[in-house]
């Protein structure tokens, strides 16, 4: 007998695109010649919407006396850091992540404001809600950034994504009182870069036949995933622009940077980014993630992280009086490719141990024993009220982890968060690592 072809795994990330020819448009050469003998290039439909100096803008919006003045939003306390700053302040060398004391010295005339995270979440929620009226395919990346995929909505909204981008900017400015920058292209990577080049308060469209001309002159650090180390490695190879990377044989890049990074950068250098815009509805799930201080490949460390995250997620579910049926694990590798895998359980759960079991199974099924991870996340979706009747299973133990964890909740409520933990997470084993400072400013 003969088996049919396998079903593709729903993977994201820059694995070389499956050979089905529809994967992204072919970027045309520079100074494109007449294209009548080819089919017309498809309309770019990926939008990157990025609110300018978000926290600062929100503060200015509600305190009009700050308008026109330099504003820095910094976390309070002696070791506070800059979270966001208006664009004029950045000219003084102030940037996100900097200690507030230093920022004050660099720009003493700026107004320093404490953050109001609830308000930022609210405003962000409003903006995302508005974006979702345009298309359901909205992927928020953070409070102030989102990708949209308009391919399904063009007929309804009119075929000109540039116009739609302009409308979005106008609407957000009008309704929320803050500005945003929009980049339009056929891929996430180029759309985001396009927006970045016209920040603040700008709109940029990069058509398919402009992609190469747009990308190749850019310096290599504009490529997603290129940090200091990678940039140094590229400089050693004599590669300074994206164009330089594009004209380097992929084998050379792979030797210098590793298989995955080499292939990714090569693809990005030619404008290829297969990542689809994946809609997410943040309210519909509860979860948490953790970035390792250094990339990790030890399976025990990863499992302990999963245990910790699962426990936390379980506690949050119980605190919210919810349970969820689908457990999702998110893994981000050292080259920034990100995978998620989900598993739907037969019954909704709010028990950390059950979430942990599912998360471990998902991680193990990937068979990536020696891949280096940067970040791990656990999330529970398809939420339902936590006190639903529960169909029991034959052979199930009468009392189990559910009861243990509820008892533990009570202990922690009384004696504090660290009073009780699973043995494998006790000190002596590496403690829970502190989160990294945020990479981009707000």
């Amino acid at each position, binding site marked *: *007998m*003969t*088996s*049919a072809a396998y079903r593709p795994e729903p993977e994201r990330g820059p694995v070389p695109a499956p050979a089905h020819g529809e994967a992204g448009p072919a970027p045309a050469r520079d100074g494109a010649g007449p294209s009548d003998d080819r089919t017309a290039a498809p309309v770019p439909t990926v939008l990157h919407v990025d609110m300018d100096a978000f926290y600062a803008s929100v503060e200015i919006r509600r305190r009009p006396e700050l308008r026109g003045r330099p504003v820095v939003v910094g976390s309070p306390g002696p070791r506070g850091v800059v979270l966001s700053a208006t664009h004029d302040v950045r000219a003084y060398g102030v940037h996100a992540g900097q200690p507030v004391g230093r920022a004050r010295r660099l720009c003493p005339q700026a107004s320093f404001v404490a953050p109001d995270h609830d308000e930022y979440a609210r405003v962000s929620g409003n903006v995302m809600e508005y974006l979702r009226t345009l298309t359901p395919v909205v992927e928020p990346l953070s409070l102030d950034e989102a990708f949209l995929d308009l391919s399904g909505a063009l007929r309804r909204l009119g075929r000109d994504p540039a116009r739609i981008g302009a409308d979005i900017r106008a609407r957000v400015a009008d309704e929320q009182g803050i500005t945003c920058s929009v980049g339009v292209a056929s891929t996430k990577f180029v759309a985001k870069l396009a927006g970045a080049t016209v920040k603040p308060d700008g709109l940029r469209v990069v058509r398919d036949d402009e992609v190469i001309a747009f990308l190749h002159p850019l310096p290599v650090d504009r490529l997603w995933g290129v940090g200091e180390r990678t940039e140094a490695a590229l400089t050693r190879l004599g590669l300074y622009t994206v164009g330089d990377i594009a004209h380097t044989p992929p084998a050379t890049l792979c030797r210098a940077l590793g298989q995955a990074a080499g292939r990714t950068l090569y693809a990005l250098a030619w404008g290829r980014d297969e990542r689809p815009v994946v809609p997410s509805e943040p309210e519909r799930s509860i979860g948490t993630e953790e970035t390792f201080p250094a990339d990790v490949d030890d399976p025990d460390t990863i499992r302990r992280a999963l245990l910790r995250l699962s426990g936390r997620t379980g506690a949050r579910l119980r605190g919210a009086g919810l349970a969820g049926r689908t457990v999702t694990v998110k893994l981000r590798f050292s080259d920034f490719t990100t995978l998620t895998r989900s598993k739907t359980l*037969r019954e909704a759960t709010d028990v950390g141990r059950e979430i942990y079991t599912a998360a471990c199974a998902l991680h193990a099924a990937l068979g990536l024993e020696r891949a280096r991870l940067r970040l791990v996340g656990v999330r529970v979706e398809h939420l339902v009220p936590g*006190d*639903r*009747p*529960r*169909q*029991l*299973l*034959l*052979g*199930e133990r*009468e009392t189990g982890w559910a009861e243990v964890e509820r008892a533990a909740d009570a202990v922690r409520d009384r004696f504090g968060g660290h009073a009780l933990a699973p043995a494998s997470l006790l000190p002596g084993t590496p403690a829970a690592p502190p989160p990294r400072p945020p990479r981009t400013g707000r």
Partner: protein
Amino acid sequence: MKFRVERDVLADAVAWTARSLPARPAVPVLAGLLLEADGGTLTLSSFDYEVSARVGIEAEVEDEGRILVSGRLLADICRSLPNRPVEVSTDGAKVAVVCGSARFTLPTLPVEDYPALPEMPTAAGSVAGDVFAAAVAQVAIAAGRDDTLPMLTGVRIEIEGDTVTLAATDRYRLAVRTFLWKPDQAGLSSIALVPAKTLNDTAKALTNGDSIQIALAGDKLGEGMIGFEGAGRRTTTRLLEGEFPKYRALFPDGAASVATVETAPFVDAVKRVSLVAERNTPVRLTFSDGRLVLEAGSGDEAQASEALDASLTGDEISIAFNPAFLLDGLSAIDSPVAQLSFTTSTKPAVMTGKPDMDAEATDEYRYLIMPVRLSG
């Protein structure tokens, strides 16, 4: 090839064989129905690599032969034939079906590409058709339908001398039925895990006649397969791999409460009560002396409530179940009176049938059902 057959006999045979045709054939030829005419018999076969079906019918065979035609097409044609004798003949690469004034032609499929059907294992014994059909129906209802746990989608067949035990579970309920049969050899002992769906279909289709043969290989040849033969029809099925749960240990020892209720009013009450509430809302049963109260809806606000006569020995008990599982059990016991045994409200209940309120329950059929834990 050329033969003549009775219309109804043909249509029947084609319809039955066509049921085993795969909807998504792994290779095109598997969508074909194999027709073999020789002697005074026409044999029809179908196969999907897991299940094979074969039936022989009487035919006037003028020219012997072996052809393969699209099963779906033939089945459609047979359904629309008038009530006259049917004559089938090959003409080059086509097949002509003539019946009364109706005439159809079908293309043939490459018969040389059709895989050889598995051999029937040697017969192990036989059992009365109606007994088998009833037993399968009572047990298959509890089998799981989740493909990610394949060993739960099967019915376990245990043969121990002249006793056959069937068991199936989806981890929420477990059904076990024993019956006697006539083994070909004394001291036969064998175990098989058969996909529930196939067993169900087989039980329905092969039990028209008096008895059904069950064929299980104990040796190398035909290992991993089970065959059934009855009413002139024959099927083979691949057995499932995997560990079936050790189910005997799941039956509680002893009972703290035993309740007896007339089945028919019980069934009606469960249906009425669960109709009012949302789908699959658990039904709570509260047994006290002389009474059973049914409530649907969890928590304090019961959305519907009914009371029935019931006799109770032992402790009072309040316990909740998924109504569909309850109804499955009540219909499977197929008896005027239902007896339920309980220990606690979070442990399984055992349901069996009795002919009347005072009779003793037998162990021939038991249905174990796990309760629902209501929010505490």
